[in-house]
């Protein structure tokens, strides 16, 4: 029992990180129907930004309070990563928006390669590490044994839940969210009734990048290491999560992330770790056979 709960905690933590990144994929897909393959690398960039800011604050400026340092890193990191997200959209995607469907996709793959190579050149190819933070562990007695719940695992799950709730509110109840939903349904019509489509799309990219930035900071506190190619594996897993949950759906992205995290973890826990990715992707394939639009996705309605 304690083993099961322990692995459940592991799976939920990993799934929350996948979910946070998956939201970025799903929002962009929802609004312009494009898979932003560079999003995984934006996340990697965000982890680097978080690391650099954190080291600057604690080593150079000598900020003693860990909480203060983390909050400053969070705010500055979100601002800087959002700037990257906006610039990428402005330079690489907007000029291709009227073009044929594959053009922005290729541009996104190019941007992904550009970002990882850029970081490799300016930051070097080595692993960048940070001292372990928030190492406090809660030991909870369960059954005959006990499980350990690290503070940072709790932090990751809480932040993901809070951000999902906040984002849900923005999309459902604010004018920005209304504009986003309008663009999602029909961009031309939205423009005709006075929605600034370009600005709405830019803001969507900024929101996605800001979430990636939070994921990057959580990643650094949890794993404490990042290298230039760390955008790839989490990016692919998060994209898978977005597809599994139903691409275009916000709660679907988080649900998909949690499912992928849990499947991987429980497969590793009770079977051999060798086949965990085989298991995760097989389940993805089976789900897509029976639910082609994912768990919470709405099927595409042909607009006549």
């Amino acid at each position, binding site marked *: 029992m304690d083993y099961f709960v322990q692995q459940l905690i592991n799976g939920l933590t990993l799934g929350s990180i996948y979910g946070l990144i998956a939201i970025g994929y799903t929002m962009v897909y929802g609004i312009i129907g494009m898979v932003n393959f560079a999003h995984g690398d934006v996340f990697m960039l965000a982890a680097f930004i978080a690391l650099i800011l954190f080291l600057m604050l604690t080593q150079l400026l000598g900020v003693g309070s860990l909480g203060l340092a983390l909050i400053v890193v969070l705010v500055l990191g979100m601002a800087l990563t959002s700037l990257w997200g906006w610039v990428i959209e402005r330079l690489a995607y907007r000029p291709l928006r009227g073009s044929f469907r594959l053009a922005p996709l290729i541009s996104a793959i190019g941007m992904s390669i550009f970002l990882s190579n850029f970081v*490799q050149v300016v930051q070097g*190819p080595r692993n960048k*590490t940070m001292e372990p933070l928030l190492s406090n562990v809660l030991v909870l007695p369960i059954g005959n044994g006990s499980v350990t719940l690290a503070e940072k695992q709790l932090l990751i799950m809480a932040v993901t839940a809070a951000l999902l709730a906040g984002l849900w509110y923005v999309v459902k109840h604010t004018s920005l969210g209304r504009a986003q939903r309008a663009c999602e349904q029909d961009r031309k019509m939205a423009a005709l009734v006075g929605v600034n489509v370009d600005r709405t799309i830019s803001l969507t990219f900024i929101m996605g990048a800001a979430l990636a930035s939070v994921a990057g900071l959580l990643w650094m506190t949890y*794993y404490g*290491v990042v290298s230039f190619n760390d955008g790839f594996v*989490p990016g692919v897993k998060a994209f898978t999560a977005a597809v599994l949950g139903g691409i275009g759906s916000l709660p679907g992205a988080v649900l998909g992330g949690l499912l992928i995290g849990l499947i991987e973890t429980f497969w590793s826990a009770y079977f051999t770790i060798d086949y965990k990715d085989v298991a995760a992707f097989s389940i993805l394939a089976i789900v897509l056979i029976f639910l082609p639009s994912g768990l919470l996705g709405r099927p595409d309605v042909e607009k006549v």
Partner: protein
Amino acid sequence: MRFVKLAAAVFVTLALASCGGEQKLKIGVAGPLTGRDAVFGAQLKYGAEQAVADINAAGGLNGQQLELLYGDDAGDPKQGRSVANNFVGEGVSFVIGHFNSGVTEPASEVYAENGILMITPGSTNPKITERGLTSVFRTCGRDDQQGKVAGEYIAANLKDKKIAIAHDKTTYGKGLADETKKTMNGLGVTEVLYEGVNTGERDFSALVSKIKASGADVVYWGGVHTEGGSILRQMRGAGVTAVMMGGDGIATNEFAQLGGPGTEGTLMTFGPDPQKRPEAQAVLAKFAARNFKPEAYTLYSYAAVQVIAEAAKAINSVDPAKIAAELHTGKSYKTVIGDLAFDAKGDVTRLDYVMYTWQKQPDGSITYVQN
């Protein structure tokens, strides 16, 4: 067809353009200059660079100056092959490299087909020299020797402990883990857990919980520092105090940065520290002047170039095939890591793996110290 002609024309032009002038003898150094094993790639590169510079300063190889070419395989077998083909096209005679056993294996086939002599300073998988290729040598040991030392150490010192084995599914990592397991099982110690993880991942929480549930006291890691360090950090984060034990793949100080303070006490098999040898002191000063710390494989790479130079001097020829034949005679050559002689397979004849422990230094850093 037109493309082929055009390519052929370009190729011929380039080939002609590179002729003329003083003929330099080309020697290639190949390894993961970028990517997750870039630390080791840098060691190979710096070692070969320094050796070539020293030989050129002393008048070259039998009077011929050496030119060093670089090949980046990024730790990827496919890229390793293309680096090898590139070297063939450039007319390289000798190659120092590669690092990862899984990359060295396919690349060495290209070298063998094209009469290039290859010496790897860091590929320890037994298979590398077991394929009957006469042009393949190594200055490091083999994983079956290393796994034997690790397995015997476990059986002798940790017999009553519970042992878990994890590896990274690569030629090197799984090979080493399996050799250790074989030796240890043969001596009556059975592991409680045996698992393979994916390279390039960062989350090992499921493995860590599995280790915890198995009650292991020692975790034998077959793989490199990137995943090994992360597993160690996550073990300590989850309150697992098991000692980690690894091979030469974790022999870089980056392992301690990845692992955090919990790295202390980690056991590791590696060759006796070549930096302590009297022969190495003059070279060490040169590395210090270049501000490079010649860790782990740097001096093995330096020695690989030296071996070629010594053999070429002995037979007064720079023909790779003749040098290979000379090396196979079993004569011993003076290098910075001591006297090296090769057997018929191309392995060094001396057997040297010893146990290291990662210890905290007075300056607070954690590094590996020979037991």
